[in-house]
């Protein structure tokens, strides 16, 4: 199980989750990310908050106070247009990386005779 998550991957997960699900509060995001990762990811849910602040400072997401399903005050995060562009860029670079790594990993090891 990959406990170490590459730097930056959490950011992209958050952005992508917001893209698919629309505005979410921290708890909802954490739940969804864990759901999608189907147990591969072992995330201390608290780590999400500094990440959210970082994304907000980069103006990729925007936080707003709202009311949750349980009728409680919660902060909802929403993707900005900048965030959307960021996802596109990240997606391209990820795909490039993945295909690159696959080539290396799939190349068969020559047998020693």
């Amino acid at each position, binding site marked *: 199980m990959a406990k170490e998550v590459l730097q930056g991957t959490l950011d992209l997960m958050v952005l992508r989750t917001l893209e698919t699900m629309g505005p979410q*509060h*921290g*708890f909802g995001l*954490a739940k969804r990310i864990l759901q999608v990762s189907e147990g591969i990811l072992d995330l*201390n*849910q*608290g*780590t999400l*908050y*500094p990440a959210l*602040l*970082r994304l907000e*400072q980069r103006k990729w997401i925007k936080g707003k106070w709202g009311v*949750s399903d*349980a009728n*409680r*005050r*919660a*902060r909802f995060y929403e993707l900005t247009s900048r965030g959307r562009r960021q996802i596109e860029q990240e997606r391209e670079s990820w795909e490039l990386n993945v295909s690159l790594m696959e080539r290396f990993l799939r190349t068969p090891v020559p047998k020693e005779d």
Partner: protein
Amino acid sequence: MLSRLWNLFRRRRLDRELDVELTHHLESLEAEYRARGFSEPDARTAARRDFGGLVQVQETYRDQRGIPMLETLGQNVRFSLRSLRRTPAMTIAVIATLAIGIGANSAVFSVVNGILIKPLPYADSDRLITVAHAAPGIQLSDSRDVGSSLFLYFIEREQNRTFDGVGLFGEGTATVTGTGEPEQVRRLFVTSDVLPLLRVQPLLGRIFSQTDDAPGSRNTVVLGYGYWQRRFGGDLSVVGKRLIMADESWDIIGVMPRQFRFLSQQPDVISPSRFDRTQVMVGAYFRRSIARLKTGVTLDQASADIRRLIPIAIDSFPLVPGSTRKQVEDARLEPSLRPLKADLVGDAANTLWVVMGTIGIVLLIACANVANLLLVRTEGRRQELLIRAALGAGWRRIGFELLTESAMLGLTGGIIGLGFAYFGLRALLASAPANLPRVGDITMDTTVLVFTLAVSLFSGLLFGVIPVVRYAKPKLAGTLPAGGRSISGSRERLRARGVLVVAQVAMAMVLLVCAGLMIRTFQKLNDVHPGFAHANEIQTVQLTISPASAPEPEQAVRRQYEILSRIAALPGVRSVAYTSAVPMGGGFNADLIFPEGKPLGDGSPPKARQLRFISPGLFETMGIPIVMGRDFSWTDVYEKRAVVLITENLARLEWGSPQQALGKRVRGSSPQDEWREIVGVTGDIRDWGLSRPLTELVYVPILAERIYNVPVWVSRSVTYAIRSSRTGTPGFLDEVRQAVWSVDSNLPLVNVRTMTDFVDDSMARTSLTLVMLAIAGAMALLLGLIGIYGAISYAVTQRTKEVGIRIALGAQNSEVRRMFLRHGLVMTALGVGIGLGIAAVFTRWMSTLLFAVSPLDPVTFGAVSVVLTTAAALASYLPSRRATRIDPIESLRAE
């Protein structure tokens, strides 16, 4: 970045918001677990586990939100404040020391800034220059140039290629009558180019144009702001009104703005100089000229331009009859251009830099003292620092914290120092010599504030860095387990303090030598005989007889004589006389003086000499001896006899001795000038001040024929000198005033002073420098002694155990005392030695401030060394006595 900075200020709200968010998350998690059937405590534990460390999250979040460095600084500041409050005595001592040191520096810097650094208050003022000419062939022994002259000015104005305007100006006084009391005003004469080339605009009306300074044009005048307010109450419709000045009517055409200053002065009235070009001849120097350089033109290029114009100027005008072309050439005229600011500031620059330097040294000494105090304090906190280091505080962090503390001390000292500086500056300006240039430009402006801030921070870091270097090293951690104080450890600590003390003594030595040299200069000046006697008994008043009240020169003299007789009749008046300018009164009336019996046309050209127009009895009143011959008589005056007296030095210079000079004749440079017989030789005087060389003077009767190109010359503005034992007593001046007004009730009495005032003026710069250096020296001495005293006291405390053992083993009191005394004296000797070396270099800068004293004056150097060493010995003896009272048993028990 900005938002992060902003976040610093709303930290509390943001923290609360984060709490709400985190709580929401945790509670939602908990609720889910409960829904899955967990018990409440289990659900909470599970939620916590999933969430991770709450505190870490908060910390990371905060770091992400703000700027860690700044937050640390904020913490440090709060922490330092707390820790400083715990040692109030030390804190107050440090802040007071710094406040005085920094305050003194700010005050002196305000002066330096106002006089030397700030540009003159005109647009592009760095292109303004003084256009003077040197003439080594004829120059007065005591002036650096001959200024300008009309023949030079006209050609320079018409043919220069390097100026955006050049003009002549002169300063004088005038009597304004008409409305209200007669009043003497400061008058500035300018050609029409002067104000435009300064790029100044009038507040009301207009300034002069070419039509105002053409000969024969209407009288026009521009008022200064202060005078406009004073005399006309700021009347906005003043332009077009008339002013009665010097018994003529003048059209007021404009008012200058409030901030307008001409060089150092704020003139009351400005009037045009109307020179007639057709009357100009080659000669008559000592006019003052300023110009504005064209953009991009250097001083050298302008000099070359003037050098080109000088021969043209000489060829363009007729020579003064009787003089020859060769004489003019032998004068060796050459340009002497200087930036206006440098010219205005003159030799004040030297004084100011020396004072600034010494005050800077005082601050350094103060910093050394503060560093000492901080060392003690940090020493006291050693255990605390060690424990924190052991608990993992990085030494960078501890160092940063110590530095924050000292920077805060520095800043606080600086802020209080600014307050001191404000009052100090006012006291300083109140005692500033009257001839200090640009006094009006001295203010505490932004430059001064920035300077103070920088100095505060710099000194904070300077004294702060010493404890940091000593205590914040990583090796600290290792020493903790050892705990107690080892003797070798304290030795090492003592050395740091020793270095500081030696530095303090050395710097104090430098300052004391400087102050000592000034004291010696002052003594020497006091020994100088000004040429006149008992200055305190001589009252002076200046009076001007206007042509309106006495049109004929003879009438004016009769009026002056009448006033003289009335004053002479006052009780207690021993003698009274008058002169165009009293000695040291700043009189300037120069002419080329041709001595008879020396071939004209070849040989050395005649030199420019000072002339004084005097009444009979002046020498008696002033206490100036008549070496040979006789004084003028009133018959000489009224019959306008061609007679003069000369000073002894002039007699020796031209004829070898007073005897030889008697009966010889001299004449001035004007065409109609006649030969005048020398009827007497008088004692020499120092007309330019005590520290200046003797002046060569020619005395001419107050009424004289054919001099300065006029048929009959009379000095209408004269200073009366009254010798009386009652000078300075109340009532005497009133009687003098009544005596004057009994002759002419319209006469304003100006420059009411005693001769002592004139002497003091001539020493004012020396006195001010002396006072400043003496204060600096005294502070340095005091701080240095405190340093030594503190260091020895500290050593005694530190070595209590050792001394206890020594005493227990049988050491005598005298031996113990000697041990500490030796320590103090070694530091002092080192400091004095180093200080002597630095002083020998430093005093060379102040050689222009000294008079008849060598910058390496052995008396001063010797005396200061002895005084400092003695004082230091005493300062180390006092605490060393305490060492002998140490009880061996208690000292060993103490640890």
